[in-house]
């Protein structure tokens, strides 16, 4: 009975979404307030019904209702309760439902936190979000109903959740990632609404900035969680494979990062408007592209649930409609504004422009590497794959360039920066980071050119960020007062940039100084990895809740002292008989020690993977910093205070945040 109610709820949500996409928009175009007033209640109603459907599906999982096909395919009565819960998004239909839940959640959030926006604007934004919801609700109702029944032959038990997904990483990775993906729908909706009513001004940029930043922060966390999960759960210690599915999440992140920075310019200086709108459209389109790639089954990956071509076609159509419609609107309505404000060739505007050029180039590179094989395959021109070296070779220089530019850009001022002054400013950070990165090279045995470049870039960003903070916080009333005077959005930027530096340092060091050894070992054997000695003590059987395992015991010694005892496992799940490798890791801020068991070679010999991973944690630590920076930035009071006065904001007026006022003095 419940599952049918769930389906009914989805259909009702679809109807509300249709109304939401039509009624408020019509009201805004005809100037009828009574129609615009429907926007918020419709958004709330849609959320309630989607939430209801989601709750019903969750209930079906928790109560082991195997008459529902989706539950029978993705759960099992022996599954621990928390995995039954997360199994809701362990397959195609449920993860799509989660996506829609997020979308309606974001829509509701926009409806709630936009009291100060003009009614016309909010009606249009919510209508656009309604249209996106229509697309996805139609998709789920027509092609991927999670409530399909297996009647009358109800299976006695479920086929179980893929063991790879029976992990805490899966509980949080998809929701975070989807929050990011779907969050860009809000930035997109703001851009489309601005195009419809022709109000591309600083106020529009300020409204969409916090939404973009939050979406970006969630996406950063989602990507980092995925990478962390791959690292320990896929078993073999890799953290980024340039797998098309990973790339699919990186693409909107890259263009979203560009969008965030270009929105800053649009808000503060009133320039780059058309570019910013285009980026908002592109970023959301890339989110949709990601969904298409992951869910259509065109890719070989963990995420490609067995799927039918109908779904792929539907998603492709959805993607095409979105891109064509929004780009057409863009072509017709993109502002042919004559920008009044001027900026010199060495201004913060230019630095941010370069940042955008680099980020968009990186987006293009990743897109080419990801899509080229798919397009060729589709045209039946041969099957090929593009390997990791392609991405490493092309992406790294862009990342380094972006980092070097960022260090200099931090000191730059809006409108005009004196070249000589900037040069003198950069001298000390340059010297400090050169010395520091040389020291790091000595610490990790051996100079490697690429490692030096990477570490130097990370140091450069870090030193420049702190240098600027020191500069800005100097105050006659004392350092503490100066530090307190800086805005939260400034600290957000500091955290974000430091996060990038941390991630860069981690990537560089672990790729250059990490050690990986595959060895054949019998109990009693000893193997060396760098300075670490691994002693294989024994291996025996162990029983888990829904699996049996070969349970290994290793001692890790450093300088004759035991520093860790590790227990990697080889699990065999009782349902489906699938085999899983569970690595064991001694995690540390400065290094991970990693052991995983491969296959059995003979009666007592096993293939064992041993790894030393310096600074690998920094990869994800950096992402946490970036996300924290994002959340801090949106808590800035100016998003609350200025909204009231925004009608009066003149885009060419001088900018009055603490930093640039000071610098204006310095320059002139």
């Amino acid at each position, binding site marked *: 009975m419940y599952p049918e109610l769930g389906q009914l709820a989805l259909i009702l949500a679809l109807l509300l979404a249709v109304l939401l996409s039509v009624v408020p928009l019509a009201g805004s175009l005809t100037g009828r307030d009574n129609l615009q007033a429907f926007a918020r209640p419709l958004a709330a109603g849609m959320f309630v019904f989607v939430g209801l459907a989601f709750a019903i599906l969750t209930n079906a999982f928790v109560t082991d209702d195997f008459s529902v096909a989706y539950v029978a395919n993705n759960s099992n009565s022996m599954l621990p309760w928390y995995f039954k819960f997360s199994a809701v998004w362990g397959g195609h239909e449920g993860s799509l439902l989660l996506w829609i839940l997020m979308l309606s959640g974001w829509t509701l959030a926009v409806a709630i936190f936009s009291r100060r926006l003009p009614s016309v604007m909010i009606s249009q934004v919510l209508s656009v979000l309604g249209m996106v919801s229509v697309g996805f609700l139609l998709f789920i109702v027509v092609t991927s109903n999670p409530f399909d029944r297996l009647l009358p032959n109800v299976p006695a038990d479920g086929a179980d959740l893929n063991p790879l997904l029976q992990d805490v990483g899966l509980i949080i990775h998809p929701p975070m990632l989807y929050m990011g993906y779907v969050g860009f729908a809000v930035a997109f909706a703001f851009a489309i609404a601005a195009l419809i009513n022709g109000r591309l001004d600083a106020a529009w940029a300020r409204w969409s900035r916090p939404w973009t930043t939050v979406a970006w922060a969630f996406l950063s966390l989602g990507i980092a969680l995925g990478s962390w999960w791959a690292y320990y759960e896929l078993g073999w210690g890799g953290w980024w494979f340039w797998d098309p599915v990973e790339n699919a999440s990186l693409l909107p992140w890259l263009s979203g990062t560009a969008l965030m920075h270009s929105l800053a310019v649009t808000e503060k200086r009133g320039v780059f408007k058309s570019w910013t709108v285009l980026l908002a459209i592109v970023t959301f389109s890339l989110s949709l592209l990601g969904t298409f790639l992951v869910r259509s089954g065109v890719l070989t990956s963990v995420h490609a649930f067995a799927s039918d071509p109908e779904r792929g076609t539907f998603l492709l159509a959805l993607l095409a409609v979105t891109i064509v419609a929004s780009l057409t609107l863009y072509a017709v309505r993109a502002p042919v504004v004559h920008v009044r404000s*001027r900026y010199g*060739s060495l201004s913060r505007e230019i630095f941010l422009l370069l940042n955008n050029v680099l980020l968009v180039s990186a987006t293009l590179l990743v897109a080419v590497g990801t899509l080229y094989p798919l397009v060729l395959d589709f045209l039946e021109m041969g*099957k090929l*794959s*593009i390997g990791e*070296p*392609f991405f490493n070779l*092309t992406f790294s220089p862009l990342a380094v360039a972006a980092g070097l530019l960022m260090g200099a850009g931090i000191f730059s001022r809006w409108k005009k920066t004196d070249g000589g002054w900037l040069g003198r400013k950069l001298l000390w950070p340059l010297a400090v980071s050169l010395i520091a990165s040389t020291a790091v090279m000595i610490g990790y045995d051996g100079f490697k050119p690429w490692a030096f470049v990477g570490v130097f870039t990370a140091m450069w960003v870090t030193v420049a960020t702190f240098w600027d903070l020191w500069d800005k916080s100097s105050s006659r009333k004392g350092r503490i007062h100066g530090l307190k005077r800086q805005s939260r959005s400034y600290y957000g930027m500091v955290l974000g940039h430091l996060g990038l530096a941390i991630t860069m340092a981690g990537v560089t060091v672990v790729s250059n100084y990490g050690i990986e050894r595959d060895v054949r070992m019998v109990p009693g054997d000893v193997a060396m990895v760098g300075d670490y000695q691994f002693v294989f003590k024994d291996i025996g059987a162990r029983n888990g809740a829904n699996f049996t395992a070969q349970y290994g015991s290793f001692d890790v010694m450093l300088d004759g002292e035991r520093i860790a005892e590790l227990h990697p496992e080889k699990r065999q799940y009782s349902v489906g008989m699938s085999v899983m490798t569970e690595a064991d890791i001694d995690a540390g801020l400065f290094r991970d020690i990693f052991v995983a068991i491969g296959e059995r070679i003979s009666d007592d010999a096993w293939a064992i993977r041993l790894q030393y991973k310096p600074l690998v944690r920094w990869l994800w630590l950096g992402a946490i910093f970036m996300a924290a920076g994002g959340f801090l930035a949106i808590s800035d009071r100016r998003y609350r205070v200025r909204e009231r006065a925004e009608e009066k904001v003149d885009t060419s007026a001088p900018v009055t945040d603490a930093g640039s006022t000071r610098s204006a003095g310095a320059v002139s």
Partner: protein
Amino acid sequence: MHPIRKKRLTIVLFLLVGLGIAVALTTYALRQNINLFYDPSQISAGEAPVDVRIRAGGMVEEGSVVRDPDSLTIEFRVTDFNASVPVEYTGILPDLFAEGQGVVAMGRLNNNGRFVADQVLAKHDENYMPPEVADALEKAAKGQNKASENATTNTVSY
């Protein structure tokens, strides 16, 4: 020049330079890192290049897996039920590697017609078959009527 024009020119130049570098890097890197896929029939017919990094895929032939007890070296044959190719690999195999299952291997073909793999990928769950492998099997089945029965029954069972 008018300052605004000058500025626009700067921007356009920046964009062009950035784009140029990106395109140059991409083509250079692409040329070196494209790995073509060949199925066992193509490889045994001599269509695959020797000593170039390629991908090969098919089913692991039943009873063909031979393991060296003293190292991590393993040998097996990959088949599309029409032709088969010997594969040699040293390292840890994925969890779902097994006889009668689909695999994709990355590596180089040596002069003796032996495929020396540096990476072996297996399907990642019970219901899924790498698309390249499914295609290769289908192609082989179409090409040879005798083998087709065998191949289709095998394909269906995954």
